[in-house]
């Protein structure tokens, strides 16, 4: 594994297998009364969140704490540019406090990669703009592997047809997921109206080996798993789609589509959900929904990532 986790591209299939095996052990720890492991005692992890995200930040914070690391949260609203300080200065000021890892969320694509070139600490990308969110993709794939496995033993995603639906253009979850899922052998189809598909997706999908579609109803009956992505209502003002009603009819996981899906196909959503827009309440709360499993998987996967990046030699 590399020193940093910046992109899902950084992880080979073997790396992912190792991370998942460790995550499974970490997952078991969550059921104990004493959840703390001493593996990262004496290590300092900064959760540097330029963009607010209670969910991801608390997940990383718990992961760090359960591994006995000292975790510190720094939340800075807005870009450093608006405060007149360069990103490099901001980050060097923080990193020079002797930290071992910087878990970073930033509203700008590529920010974590840039920061990794400036600091000695290991950098974990906890979401950069509309680029990537590699730990989210790991936890999604992990939750699916558990679902397709048997009694806590992880199943294979080889050949499983995973359908991602929603605002692909603005989704870092989509970008990371498509990389991780295809690396694990899953067959991926992404579905969105043309205005919410990123530029150049035709050539990208053909070189990266995933499929695209504008027609959810055509794809859904062939799905082994469905992942609904958040659609922000603000996108309507950008002319990406006319009304939320029209979006739901075309691309929402409605009650009717839930019926088409059947009771076995797992449903994922990275959160936060817009109930009634991209996902009907019935679907979100259905027995086949993995949404809460995703959250507990998130802590296990992040413990695994922090452990593998920080426990061994070569780390500061």
């Amino acid at each position, binding site marked *: 594994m590399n020193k940093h986790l910046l992109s899902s591209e950084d992880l080979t299939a073997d790396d992912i297998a190792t991370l998942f095996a*460790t995550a499974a052990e970490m997952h078991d720890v969550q059921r104990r009364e004493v959840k703390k492991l001493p593996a990262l005692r004496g290590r300092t992890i900064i959760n540097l969140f330029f963009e607010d995200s209670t969910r991801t930040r608390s997940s990383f914070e718990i992961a760090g704490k359960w591994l006995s690391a000292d975790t510190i949260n720094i939340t800075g609203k807005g870009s450093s540019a608006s405060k007149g300080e360069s990103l490099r200065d901001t980050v060097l000021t923080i990193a020079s406090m002797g930290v071992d890892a910087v878990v970073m969320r930033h509203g700008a694509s590529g920010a974590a990669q840039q920061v990794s070139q400036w600091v000695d600490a290991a950098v974990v990308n906890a979401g950069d703009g509309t680029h990537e969110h590699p730990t989210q993709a790991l936890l999604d794939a992990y939750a699916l592997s558990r679902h397709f496995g048997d009694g806590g033993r992880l199943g294979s995603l080889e050949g499983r047809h995973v359908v991602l639906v929603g605002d692909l253009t603005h989704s870092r979850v989509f970008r990371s997921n498509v990389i991780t899922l295809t690396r694990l052998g899953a067959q991926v189809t992404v579905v969105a109206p043309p205005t919410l598909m990123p530029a150049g997706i035709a050539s990208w999908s053909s070189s990266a080996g995933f499929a695209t579609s504008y027609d959810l109803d055509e794809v859904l009956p062939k799905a082994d798993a469905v992942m609904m992505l958040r659609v922000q209502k603000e996108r309507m003002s950008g002319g990406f789609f006319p009304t939320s009603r029209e979006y739901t009819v075309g691309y929402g996981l409605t009650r009717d589509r839930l019926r088409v899906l059947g009771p076995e196909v797992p449903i994922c959503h990275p959160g936060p959900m817009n109930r009634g827009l991209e996902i009907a309440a019935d679907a979100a709360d259905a027995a086949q929904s993995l949404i809460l499993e995703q959250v507990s998987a998130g802590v296990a996967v992040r413990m695994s990532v922090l452990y*593998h990046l920080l*426990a*061994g030699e*070569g780390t500061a």
Partner: protein
Amino acid sequence: MPATTEPAVGPPGRTVLDARDIARALTRISHEILERNKGHEGLVLLGVPTRGVGLAQRIAARIAETEGVTIPVGALDITLYRDDLRRHPARAPQPTAIPAGGIDQKTVVLVDDVLYSGRTVRAALDALADIGRPAVVRLAVLVDRGHRELPIRADHVGKNLPSARSERVMVRLEETDGLDVVRIADSPDAARPTEEVAR
């Protein structure tokens, strides 16, 4: 990870225990455990991966033969509790499997292949404390090679094997390596502080 590519002749060095010696030692340890516990009541065997798990299962099998009961066997991985994590590349932890009945108020016997510095046992005790509160913890090892760095001793020992720090003690078991043998050899890597090199 099973070392399936290991040739059946095993590692180089002088053989100190062959398959028959190992079998005898385990039988003796099984009897000692029962004797010390005054029966099989409340016994739980926890092997320390990798090779301690196989040894624990063999001991359980012998107890089953003698007593006609199946006692709980599990695995206790100590990777995350090691005090030398920083000195090596991070390794993936191996499964920890605690038997269904848990360990609270039980007599837990930790089983490992080689006792050396005592650091693995220290880590195992820490790990155990995070999982529950046994009434008693005992330690069974196939080989005690000395050179303790911590105030720890084994309750049940298959063989006391005086060794130099510069030597390597290599345990190979059927389950993981395809043959049963314990050998000792000069180590090219004498300063190695861990108690067994094959872990």
